[in-house]
């Protein structure tokens, strides 16, 4: 059953790649816009061979890792505190409601102005990008903890902190994980965006640089690698989620 599904899911991509290759070779697809899969694969091997691809992947992953970690930490912290205290939520509500709709990319020039073009500005963009979904889902999760569970903690005379850690946080965990999953997607979008605008390394930089040098095959290598890495990050998060939420 599982094998059958995998085969079924692979048919369409394989057919498309074959058509693309044939189209490129027969000249019905312009190879300077769409290099054939064969050419892209050669470019992949070449950039891997001279270490450029790995270097760019490493730079982007490092930024995502740092920014996402900071965003997740702050998002969960803010979500829990505001979920617990209506007063704190009210105090921050106006500022948050104004900041939230700002597209992440709008922060890139602002941050460059503030702290320059170096690593911190990119990491902070990613932090902002992952903060919002994680904060919102954590906040919702804490706010929507079933009163009935809290009453159980009350009846058994548990202290406030114990109620938060043993009842409210576990109850909100599925929601927090939704935030973490959306957040990593958003972090990945942010890093590429930031690198497209201003960077001297990273997968986003590789795309814009290849365009400037008219190396379309390298550009596609970077685009595909971004997709593949995003896919694997998702797989990892899902694995962690299944393990931690096996009760759900």
């Amino acid at each position: 059953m599982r094998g059958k599904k995998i085969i079924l899911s692979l048919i369409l991509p394989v057919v498309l790649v074959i058509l693309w290759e044939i189209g490129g070779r027969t000249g019905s697809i312009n190879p300077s816009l769409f290099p054939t899969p064969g050419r892209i694969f050669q470019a992949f091997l070449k950039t891997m061979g001279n270490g450029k691809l790995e270097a760019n992947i490493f730079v982007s992953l490092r930024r995502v890792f740092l920014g996402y970690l900071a965003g997740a930490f702050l998002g969960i912290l803010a979500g829990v505190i505001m979920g617990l205290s209506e007063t704190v939520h009210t105090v921050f509500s106006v500022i948050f409601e104004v900041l939230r709709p700002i597209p992440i990319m709008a922060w890139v020039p602002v941050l460059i102005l503030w702290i320059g073009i170096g690593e911190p500005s990119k990491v902070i963009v990613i932090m902002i990008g992952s903060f919002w979904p994680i904060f919102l889902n954590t906040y919702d999760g804490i706010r929507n903890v079933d009163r009935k569970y809290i009453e159980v903690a009350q009846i058994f005379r548990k202290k406030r902190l114990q109620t938060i850690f043993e009842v409210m946080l576990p109850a909100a965990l599925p929601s927090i994980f939704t935030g973490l999953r959306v957040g990593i997607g958003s972090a990945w979008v942010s890093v590429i965006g930031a690198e497209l605008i201003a960077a001297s390394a990273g997968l986003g930089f590789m795309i814009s640089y290849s365009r400037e040098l008219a190396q379309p095959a390298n550009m596609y290598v970077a685009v595909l690698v971004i997709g593949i890495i995003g896919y694997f990050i998702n797989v990892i998060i899902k694995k962690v989620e299944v393990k931690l939420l096996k009760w759900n």
Partner: protein
Amino acid sequence: MSVNQESEKSIALSIKNLNKSFAVDNDLVDVIKDLTLDVEEGEFISIVGPSGCGKSTLFRIIGGLDTPTDGTVSIEGRQVSGIDQDISMVFQENRLFPWRRVKDNILFGLDDERRKKLGKEEQKALVDKYIELVDLKGFENSYPKQLSGGMKQRASIARTLISDPKVLLLDEPFSALDAFTRMSLQNALTDIWRKEKKTMILITHDIDEAVFLGTKIVVLSERPTRIKRIFDVNIDRPRDRSSDEFTNLRRDVMREFFGHKSEAVEYNI
């Protein structure tokens, strides 16, 4: 409950002149009106009353989750306010934490003070004792979603028992179960009550259940809730649901419940 003259048992729970009203659209609605009840130690009180009367509110007040407008609740002569160690509750929905295994759900009921004094091994032994008592051996490591409705309610009872209250409130604990599971849990609860010698108070919609379990049956009126009548149940255990004394008492309670109206006969099928 009026104090039984011959009995030397002490009063476990005493409710005096309890009143509760809620504000609804600038009007005060009386939910409980001047309710007074004494419960002797070791009794099993079944409370029946029409739906929408203040049964659950009464329980929430006794359990400390809600405050009375007026009146007092005392345990062994000590007036209680708010949530108290000596009173605990089994909820209508089992309210087990889905993220905790059965044994950890039960351990949650253990009082923190007591827990600190016990070592890990002693805690485990205590949990095991209650798991055995409610007949859940072999399911210690299951998550609630892996249990049937009846098993969940057993675990929930164990969680309340381990907190070692003097008075146990059971708020329609079996109402969501199918008829056969309900009967098996009624039997189990009778055994637990006899072994643990706890004072138990049960709210139920099921008059059969009230007669089967109770040492006394308290019939409540419609809102505002007051006590309509108290029946003593002097039927030997294990009780036979088809015996004459059982069916006679059930009929009497039913009549009281429906205010001697003729529907009683039709409901009594």
